[in-house]
């Protein structure tokens, strides 16, 4: 088929290395031991009819279509459930088998609507194909017998329809929900002929536990579960494999198209990160890409109090270049800077930083990793030698202990969360360190955290050091590993340091609030429970001691020898699709591509030679420094590609103040985002569907992004950056992103072996990829650490200055939710709002009662820097004294409250700890009213824009 549907082998591949040779229909075939007869037949080029089997699910043996005969075996075994055996002789087609299969097909069709021609699956229906294959010609039972043809449709999910009248009860959806997604939202209710798919307890999909990951829809062999987009527009006719533009998991998808129209996104089973799984965002929430809010023409204005004016690309670029040049002439070379985007491609991030370093002539470039994983970059570089996670996602399938710190994988990284849940269901031990009871703790079927260290926000370092204290004082280290692979001196110092009484779980109890016995138990399990892997997120990094915690995590892994092989490691769960990549691409003010310091002369000379300019050896401004400098008056111009600092950065008052001070703000984005409301030049961006390039995910996997439709505004983002560079007088002349990647590879040791040809051939590549590792590096630090010897560093606990007191008695912490993505610019423009349409404040029943607040009340949340209003949710997922909100909606103003406190090493904001006062209120906050006014005004400037004069 032209949509390039991959071959379905019916059953999963066997991992065995032993080979078995058998004969199928006279053909000799050799396969791995444990392979099913069905899969072996596919290998031999023989298709056995099947309905309940598909190769991402364990065999089930229910449809009985795949019966075969095996010499010497009784009866007619199902080929999907029968493993191959040496010398086995299988017959897949004969008169008797044909008779049986027709008999079964006849039963199926006796309870199936006969509307094939108008059915949404027409042309892509496994039932239709199979019945055709077996040659059923008559249904002798007639159609007036008992049936399910009048079953009611469930249209409750915004993205897919469930029509039980077409269901053949193969259980593929149920099994996908269990085995692949791990949500267990579906079951078969009733038995015998009454068996039917039941979401929840015979509820509508939207009322059930369903998380709309789409695994069931993908698994369905009929039109029972089918995308509404397919119902609306029909079957797609061609497809292209590309990479999701949501989170840092980096799932591969087949974008299935009808001409220029994207019909559906189907996860690619060959995807190295996702193996055919998806979440509600990547699978369904792509409608934003063609949303009416997309801006497709460049716009300029002299002042932000003026309406926009549409202009040609050339005029916009020339205007921007002129303003930047004027500013630099007036205020100096360092008065301008820019931000690369973690949502754009590697090539685009590279070009933006190149433009800034070579075109602007300074190092004032930063990226949104500043506000998320910059402490990871710092902490892991210092200890292990490389600013990245150490493992592949699949590594977790070999873990015996999983330690999750400050991450919520089932919401934030759902596809990896499902993989983690699979391993936990297989029996791996789980330790969760989190102030909240995230779903992994006790709200995921068949999973309960063995240890939940429900710490007080801000006490990560104390907890991590207490874990180390237990390991050292109880002698649970892997001393051999530490002495062989790490700096002995640093290890000895660290041991002495953490062994101090002041770090015992009992001593830090006052700080952490964690039962010392739990801490001790968790430390013992982590150190002695087999392969132990640490996964962490922004709950680790977004603190005043974010870098210290990252260092503490690396210390734990080194001390216990849990690094350098599969099943272990230190794994930051990166937030955005290309945040790893944007960091790799030299987006930080102090580092060139590949994390090499700008002050290093040899590196700088390399780039000066390649780029033909002289470069500054002085690190440039970080984002918060840019804001401060803007308010001081020394920073006047900014080029922001694909990042919404006006919503995502902390202490919004301060950010907005800074943005208003800029004389030229150039925003390149697909929407008029919050930041663009302060902009003078708007350069319309291209969605991930409209460009070529690569994204790098949290496991260092470089995956292809492929253009499946023309850019709505006519240009891919890298082309726009190139135009701007040229207009600034710095020549760039790339004709395709592959040329940019070639340049990157030539300048970066870790990426020296990367090329588009290789990515196309292999599907994806994990860096380091160079002469030593031509096919990439799944697991890092195998023989030795990247920096040579691992380095232990001391992790003194220093309390944040953000303290509670009688005026601000509660701690606010922030996070995100499954259905929405970060600032929500994309997901808010999709039907994902059906799950989450506003940010709310979660609080413990005890606090709610004390404050006289009930579920659904409007509450004012006031910090030392600002106030906002949202609705309260009373839930015991919280601990007393801690409140929580998400930050997906600009009007919620979560960052109105957050402060400018930040990580000591990297300035990563302390989003996770803000002292607040919560009270019942009747109206929006002053900020919200002002925001609404400003927002309305800017919307009007957009709505009343002066059209391009052509």
């Amino acid at each position, binding site marked *: 088929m032209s949509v390039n549907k991959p071959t379905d082998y019916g059953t999963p591949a066997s991992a065995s290395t032993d080979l078995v040779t058998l004969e199928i229909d006279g053909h000799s075939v050799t396969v791995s031991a444990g392979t099913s007869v069905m899969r072996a037949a596919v290998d031999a080029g023989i298709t056995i009819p099947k309905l309940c089997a598909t190769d991402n699910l364990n*065999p*089930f*043996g*229910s*449809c*009985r279509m795949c*019966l075969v005969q095996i010499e010497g075996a009784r*009866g*007619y075994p*199902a080929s999907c*459930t*029968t*493993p191959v055996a040496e010398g086995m002789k299988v017959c897949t087609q004969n008169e008797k088998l044909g*008779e*049986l299969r027709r*008999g*079964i097909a006849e*039963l*199926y069709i*006796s*309870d199936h609507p006969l509307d094939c021609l108008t059915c949404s699956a027409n042309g892509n229906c496994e039932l239709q194909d199979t019945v055709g294959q077996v040659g059923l010609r008559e249904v*002798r*039972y007639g159609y007036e*017998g*008992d049936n399910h043809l009048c079953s009611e449709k469930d249209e409750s999910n915004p993205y897919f329809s469930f029509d039980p009248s077409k269901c*053949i*009860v193969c*259980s593929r959806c149920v099994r996908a929900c269990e085995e692949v997604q791990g949500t267990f939202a579906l*079951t*078969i209710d*009733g*038995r*015998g*002929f*009454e*068996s039917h798919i039941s979401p929840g307890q015979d509820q509508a999909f939207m009322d059930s536990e369903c998380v709309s990951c789409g695994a069931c829809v993908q698994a369905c062999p009929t039109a029972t579960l089918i995308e509404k987009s397919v119902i609306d527009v029909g079957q797609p006719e061609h497809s292209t494999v590309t990479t999701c533009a949501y989170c840092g998991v980096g799932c591969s998808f087949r974008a299935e198209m009808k001409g220029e129209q994207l019909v559906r996104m189907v996860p690619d089973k060959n995807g190295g990160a996702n193996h055919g799984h998806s979440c509600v965002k990547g699978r369904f929430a792509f409608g934003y890409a063609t949303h009416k809010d997309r801006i497709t023409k460049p716009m300029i204005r002299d002042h932000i109090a003026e309406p926009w004016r549409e202009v040609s690309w050339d005029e916009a670029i020339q205007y921007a270049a002129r303003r930047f040049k004027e500013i630099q002439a007036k205020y100096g070379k360092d008065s301008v800077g820019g931000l690369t985007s973690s949502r754009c491609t590697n090539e685009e991030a590279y070009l933006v930083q190149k433009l800034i370093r070579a075109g602007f002539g300074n190092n004032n470039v930063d990226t949104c990793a500043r506000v998320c994983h910059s402490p990871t970059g710092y902490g892991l570089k210092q200890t292990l030698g490389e600013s990245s996670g150490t493992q592949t996602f699949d590594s977790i399938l070999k873990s015996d202990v999983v330690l999750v710190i400050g991450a919520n994988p089932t919401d934030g990284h759902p596809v990896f969360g499902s993989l983690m849940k699979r391993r936990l269901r297989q029996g791996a031990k789980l330790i969760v360190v989190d102030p909240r009871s995230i779903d992994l703790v006790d709200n995921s079927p068949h999973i309960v955290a063995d240890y939940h260290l429900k710490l007080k926000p801000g006490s990560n370092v104390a907890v991590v050091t207490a874990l180390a204290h237990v390991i050292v004082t109880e002698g649970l280290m892997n001393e051999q590993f530490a002495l062989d692979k790490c700096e002995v001196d640093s290890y000895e110092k660290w041991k002495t340091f953490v062994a101090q009484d002041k770090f015992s779980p009992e001593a830090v109890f006052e700080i952490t609030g964690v039962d010392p016995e739990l801490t001790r138990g968790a430390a013992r399990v982590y150190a002695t429970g087999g392969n132990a892997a640490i996964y962490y997120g922004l709950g680790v990094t977004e603190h005043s001691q974010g870098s210290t915690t990252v260092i503490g995590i690396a210390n734990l892994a080194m001390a216990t020898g849990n690094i350098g092989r599969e099943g272990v490691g230190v794994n930051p769960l990166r937030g955005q699709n290309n945040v790893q990549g944007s960091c790799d691409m030299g987006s930080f003010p102090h580092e060139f591509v590949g994390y090499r310091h700008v002050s290093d002369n040899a590196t700088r000379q390399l780039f000066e030679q390649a780029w033909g300019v002289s470069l500054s050896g002085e690190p440039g401004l970080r984002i918060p420094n840019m804001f401060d400098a803007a308010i001081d008056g020394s920073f006047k111009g900014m080029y922001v590609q694909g990042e919404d600092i006006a919503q995502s950065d902390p202490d919004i008052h301060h950010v907005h103040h800074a943005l208003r001070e800029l004389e030229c703000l150039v925003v390149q984005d697909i929407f008029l985002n919050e930041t663009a409301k302060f902009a003078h030049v708007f350069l319309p961006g291209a969605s991930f569907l409209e460009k070529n390039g690569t994204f790098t995910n949290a496991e260092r996997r470089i995956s292809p992004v492929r253009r499946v439709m023309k850019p709505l505004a006519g240009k891919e983002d890298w082309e726009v950056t190139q135009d701007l560079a040229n207009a600034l007088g710095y020549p760039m002349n790339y004709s395709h992103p592959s040329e940019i990647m070639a340049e990157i590879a030539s300048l970066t040791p870790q990426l020296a072996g990367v090329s588009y040809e290789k990515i196309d051939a292999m599907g994806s590549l994990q860096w380091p990829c160079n002469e030593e590792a031509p096919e990439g590096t799944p697991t890092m630090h195998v023989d030795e650490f990247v920096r040579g010897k691992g380095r232990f560093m001391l992790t003194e606990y220093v309390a944040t200055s953000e303290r509670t007191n009688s005026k601000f008695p509660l701690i606010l912490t922030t996070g995100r939710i499954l259905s929405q993505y970060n600032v929500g610019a994309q997901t808010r423009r999709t039907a994902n709002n059906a799950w989450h349409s506003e940010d709310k404040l979660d609080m413990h029943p005890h606090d709610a009662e004390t404050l006289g607040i009930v579920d659904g009340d409007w509450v004012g949340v006031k910090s030392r820097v600002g106030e906002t209003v949202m609705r309260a949710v009373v839930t015991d997922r919280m601990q007393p004294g801690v409140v929580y909100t998400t930050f997906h909606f600009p009007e919620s103003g979560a960052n109105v409250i957050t402060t400018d406190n930040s990580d000591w090493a990297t300035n990563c904001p302390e989003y996770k700890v803000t002292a607040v006062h919560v009270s019942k209120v009747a109206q929006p906050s002053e900020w919200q009213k002002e925001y609404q006014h400003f927002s309305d005004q800017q919307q009007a400037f957009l709505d009343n824009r002066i059209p391009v004069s052509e």
Partner: protein
Amino acid sequence: MTRLFISRDSTALSLGAEHVVTAFQTQAAALGQEIEIVRNGSRGLFWLEPLVEVETAEGRVAYGPVNPSDVSDLLAAGLLEGKQHPLFLGNIEELAYFKDQNRLTFARVGLTDPVDIDDYLAHDGYRGLHNALKLQAADIVKQVTDSGLRGRGGAAFPTGIKWNTVLNAPAEQKYIVCNADEGDSGTFSDRMIMEGDPFVLIEGMTIAGLAVGATQGYIYLRIEYPHAKIALNQAIEAAYARGYLGENIQNSGKTFHLEVRSGAGAYICGEETSLLESLEGKRGLVRFKPPLPAIVGLFGKPTIVNNVISLASVPIILDKGGEYYRDYGMGRSRGTLPIQIAGNIKHPGLFEAAFGITLREILYTYGGGSASGRPIRAVQVGGPLGAYVHEGQFDTPLDYEAFAAMQAVLGHGGIVVHDDTSNMADMARYAMEFCVEESCGKCTPCRIGSTRGVEVIDKIVNNIEKDKNTVLLRDLCNTMTFGSLCAMGGMTPFPVLSALNHFPEDFGLSKDKA
């Protein structure tokens, strides 16, 4: 003090045993006569229940069936001294129905107080276990293998081979699971053992645990057996208290834990893999095999799943040796089968006999012919999935192979009798209906086929395209027989086709059209 025996068995209870007990207690008290009523198991002569036995100097003397209204009369007649009365039966063990049995597995049922461990010990209880504790695991398995015991649940798989597979499957944890989901219509031997001699099952499971290295056992008991549950739990408690269960059994250093788990009312959970699913807390859905439960069973661990009677037959094998048990029976069917006689029969009950006895002997010599007095037209042997056997086949000996040769099964040994007023087309329809009701719904032939089966039989009986639909019914039976995942769908055609083949006239068909 005179000891009376009145059964706690469900059959006796349903016939009013509890009221008889009350009547004896109140009336004896009123007469100032001291009695002790032992609640024993049933002797299995159901037409005589409620049966009352009195312990006298000359042995136990039986009366029955006793109504509460008979009690004053019986006491007045001198029942407590074993005197004559119209309901006087003498020593129950002297009745041919009882005397002609080979009570190996049921040796104690009716004789002892089922939950009194001392009574059990006094009647040769735990001798098998004591022997087993002296043997190596493989030697225990050998005894069972040598006995020729085959699974009494219906599949007749050699028990020793199954045990040997589990013994040789390396695992840290193994399980013994007793299939006590006795759901076949007309069967009740499992229930009678569990209510009448629960210790023999517990002992058998403990021996199984020793034989394969399993330390945990579960009895999966159908929810419809509340009295069995009480008896089992009382007996398990006593066994724990006396060191016959738990850690360090009889100071041997061996461990075996046992608990009863209730089913949720699904026939299919008597199928061993569905049973395991249910025991794991899931829907009772059939698993495909291989892997066999002996290799990948409960919670994925090597597991013996044996029927109650199979396990309850183990103690006597370990007590008296495999050879002793093997000496009973014929051909490859060794030992005894507790035959359950039900339906339209004069003397319903349990009859434990060595394999080889014929159907005719059971139906007429012991069963006394039909209850209605009319000719017996057909009997269904082996539960609702068993074939209907007609009069011409009544001389077949009860033997797995002999039954298989006539496309019938012995199954769990249940026999349901029909006289000549039964319509066999109705019976065929009922077989399909039963499958509709009880199919787990996993595989297509069973899930949809059974519903279509009912519809097609209705069409035949109602003269709708009779010939075409008869062909269709046979094709459907073919699809179900060879296409189904388990015996539920695979054997439903047995009663259907046997009815169609032997009694075409009931379908309105002539012999040659059927």
